[in-house]
């Protein structure tokens, strides 16, 4: 029974990684850049929820909405101020380094406002735990909510991209910015929208993550951010189903590693598996080998 329990925990953790990985993968697919500050937006999102509840006295649901709005705006501001001027720069390294700079900036802003001490984050999930198999298997409310959130977000996002005009514009921009412009698509607007969606999802991920692992520091977002990036690469960066598969796999490997091998080694195992996968399938599980037609 413990195997099933580990599996469910893994899927739950993986769901959080998948939601974060979406932000990486969408931004990469459309702007062809790695937004390494994405993980820190999660942390900001979690602080906003915490502050809205404890300092402003908002109910949890309202606090989450505030956090989503805040992170959406934050994402768009980061994109317009820090990245947009560099997107056409000669070197893609410039954007990458800027992203790392933004990451440190966000961490230090949080440090300045909230201090370095670990804050305990009260779970905002009020769903009761599910007890199965006569008490042998308990699934926490957080786990249930996380998995459901992930399914809902994935489905909504895929429908949005397939069916909506803005979603189709995203596909066009990700394939060919120039041709997209010739269709009348506002490329900068589409990139900003992608950042907005990715950052809103980061806020959701922040709430889920901190509800399951109830501590919060300015560095809370860094490690999940890196792991979600790994998940995105795992699944094939640029692919939305890839983010889901990569995220879930990563979560399951991490929890199994912790449970059966060594809890200290879990992260090493995760990154070790990444190296192996990339050696076998360099473009990731669902990634495409990009071949330029001449």
């Amino acid at each position, binding site marked *: 029974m413990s195997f099933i329990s580990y599996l469910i925990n893994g899927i739950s953790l993986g769901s959080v990684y998948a939601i974060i990985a979406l932000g990486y993968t969408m931004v990469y697919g459309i702007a062809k850049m790695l937004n390494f500050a994405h993980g820190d937006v999660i942390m900001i999102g979690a602080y906003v929820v915490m502050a809205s509840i404890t300092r402003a006295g908002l109910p949890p649901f309202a606090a989450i909405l505030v956090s989503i709005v805040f992170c959406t705006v934050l994402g768009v501001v980061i994109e317009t101020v820090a990245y947009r001027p560099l997107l056409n720069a000669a070197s893609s390294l410039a954007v990458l380094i800027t992203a790392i700079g933004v990451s440190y900036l966000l961490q230090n802003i949080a440090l300045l406002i909230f201090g370095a001490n670990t804050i305990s984050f009260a779970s905002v999930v009020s769903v009761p735990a599910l007890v199965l198999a006569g008490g042998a298997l308990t699934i926490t409310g957080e786990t249930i909510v996380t998995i459901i959130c992930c399914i809902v977000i994935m489905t909504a996002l895929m429908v949005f991209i397939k069916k909506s*005009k803005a979603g*189709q*514009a995203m*596909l*066009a921009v990700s*394939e*060919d910015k*120039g*041709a*997209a*412009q*010739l*269709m*009348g*698509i*506002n*490329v900068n607007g589409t990139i900003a929208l992608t950042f907005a969606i990715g950052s809103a999802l980061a806020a959701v991920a922040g709430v889920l993550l901190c509800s399951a692992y109830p501590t919060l520091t300015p560095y809370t977002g860094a490690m999940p951010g890196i792991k979600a990036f790994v998940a995105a690469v795992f699944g094939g960066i640029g692919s939305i189903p890839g983010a889901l598969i990569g995220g879930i796999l990563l979560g399951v490997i991490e929890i199994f590693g912790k449970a059966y091998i060594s809890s200290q080694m879990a992260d090493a195992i995760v990154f070790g598996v990444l190296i192996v996968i990339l050696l076998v399938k360099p473009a990731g599980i669902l990634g495409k080998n990009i071949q330029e037609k001449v």
Partner: protein
Amino acid sequence: MAMLEIKDIEVYYGMIQAIKGISFEVKEGEVIALIGANGAGKTTILHTITGLLSPKRGSVLFEGQDITKIPAHKIVSLGMAHVPEGRRVFADLTVYENLKMGAYTRKDKAEIDETIAMVYKRFPRLEERKIQLAGTLSGGEQQMLAMGRALMSHPKIILMDEPSMGLSPILVNQIFDIIEEVSKSGTTVLLVEQNAKKALSIADRAYVLETGKIVLEGDAKALMDDDSIKKAYLGE
């Protein structure tokens, strides 16, 4: 009044000057050919007109309006469509989705469906392959798709960049037949081609480009008989 007026434009890529002061005009209903060798600046001119590049000096006027500073994505809704060099269809989208993308700036669903039907009538091949991914089409089919996609915006003028590139002679003839049909149905055409013979055969007037400058212009039929043109571009 000219529909499209290019006034003394100069375009640079970094320090390199690609277009060294070019002026020309396209009148409503005309088919105008820009011909010249590789690197003469033909594509650069089209990119400057549709706003993908901006000129350092000079201006572009469309129906009397200065569009030099208007961003590329706002040009389409003014009534100008651009079929880019190398077709640049969206390979991971279906033929149908590509066509819909061409109507991105249009709102009325019923009208869009009507235009799609019109495009299918002109390119029956596209209807046969409407659910196929554009990347799996042959070169000729992709060219048809790129042209159909441009027609989806209901343009007053259509800019075509090397539509014959990489196509077999039979397909080239087919594509030029379609360009003539498009022109007859009332759309003004600005055609950029290396295949000077074909271009001159359907054009009303033509401009000959050499390294960023217009070296010759005039009636297409007259240019066909011009000795220097015959030698340099028609291989006679």
